[in-house]
């Protein structure tokens, strides 16, 4: 067994060269690729971890926002409750005031109605009183009463202003003497005579009846009426009563 030194030397160099070649073209590229893949995987994992952390942070932020929403909701509810209470109080006060006003209006209306009714009753009572008086006085038919009313009429005419008395006595003026019952001829003559005495001449005078006068003698012309009857007196009384009630 011999050792060929040339072969030994060649093989030594060959293996050294092969070590370099495989290192350059096999081990280093593959090891670099494995390392790059590990690095990429680590980067992806880090990225995924960062994304996960980001998601967790976002979830926490959402949770915080939700908590804020809850607080805000409670605040809004409190505010709404306060506002509703204030509104309720306001509406209640308004309703109370309105009710009081309605009540006072109703009271005033009732008082007005009662007052109106009372006036109506009083008027009715006055009318009834006058009617009763008229009926009672209507039963009194005496010549003395006619004479008294003729005197009163003459007195009233005499009390008229001069111009009115002239108007009554003027030519063409036409007056009617109204009595509750027809006057007989004597009474008519006396009436004409008495008026002629007061007016200076006899007026153109007709005679008429009106039972509504109850008692009395009135002189009615186109533009002038001389009231002289119980009806006129009772009407005056009733008007006076009404005026006194109003006052």
């Amino acid at each position, binding site marked *: 067994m011999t050792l060929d030194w040339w072969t030994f030397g060649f*093989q030594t160099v060959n293996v050294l060269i092969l070590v370099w070649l*495989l290192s350059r*073209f096999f081990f280093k590229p593959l090891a670099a690729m494995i390392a790059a893949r590990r690095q990429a995987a680590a980067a992806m994992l880090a990225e995924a971890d960062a994304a996960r952390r980001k998601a967790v942070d976002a979830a926490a932020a959402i949770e915080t926002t939700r908590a804020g929403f809850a607080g805000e909701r409670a605040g809004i509810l409190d505010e709404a409750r306060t506002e509703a209470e204030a509104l309720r109080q306001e509406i209640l006060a308004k309703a109370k005031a309105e009710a009081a006003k309605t009540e006072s209006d109703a009271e005033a209306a009732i008082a007005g109605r009662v007052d109106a009714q009372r006036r109506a009753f009083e008027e009715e009572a006055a009318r009834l009183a006058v009617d009763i008086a008229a009926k009672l006085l209507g039963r009194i038919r005496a010549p003395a009463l006619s004479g008294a009313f003729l005197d009163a009429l003459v007195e009233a005419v005499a009390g008229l202003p001069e111009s009115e008395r002239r108007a009554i006595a003027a030519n063409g003026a036409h007056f009617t003497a109204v009595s509750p019952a027809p006057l007989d001829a004597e009474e008519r003559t006396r009436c004409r005579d008495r008026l002629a005495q007061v007016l200076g001449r006899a007026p153109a005078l007709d005679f008429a009846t009106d039972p509504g006068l109850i008692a009395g003698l009135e002189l009615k012309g186109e533009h002038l009426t001389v009231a002289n009857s119980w009806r006129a007196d009772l009407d005056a009384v009733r008007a006076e009563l009404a005026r006194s009630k109003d006052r």
Partner: protein
Amino acid sequence: MKTPLSTEPLFTLGPVAISEPVVVTWALMALLTLGCLLLTRRLSLQPSGLQAALETVVEAIDGQIRDVMGAEPGPYRSFVGTLFVFILLANWSSLVPGVEPPTAHLETDAALAVLVFFAVIVFGIRANGVVGYLKSFAAPAIFMFPLNLVETVTRSLSLLVRLFGNVMSGVFVVGIVLSLAGLFVPIPLMALDLLTGAVQAYIFAVLAAVFIAGTVAEGRPHGAPSPEAS
């Protein structure tokens, strides 16, 4: 019959005699380089099946270095990995008719053993410095210095003898059986040689890693972490 015990020159280049193991080694180098160039041409982060297989080989080598040396495989991968790949291919080259594996010749195994011998020294000095490396011979006691020195040589010799003996004997046996029996009779023995060749490649590479790791670790204080591991 050719004998692996002697190396005959195939041709000469002037005074230089070129033998068959050298030519076969060149062929293997060319094959490996070309193959590597073709296979690693289109590496990408999303590996193809072939790339995944190649990466599996590299990761298996890295895993073995980590397990045996207890260090990161980066500085040792090329040397240990090349030893394994070359010895494996050289052993299996006997399958090619008419080719005698280079590892069946003493010169190739001696070259590999010498390279391991020097690699141990280089890695030891790189890891611990010259003084640290020399101190490693005095561990665990100074009187161990000569013994450690002898061991450094003898363990390289053991590598040489183990590889040479196993491969050469396989070639011998196959040759003898082939000359005595027939064409197909040595096939089971050749199949056994495949296994033996793979095992021997693995043993040689692992022992080389063990020797380097031993030297690197001996220079460090007890319990200190491996510099490569950091």
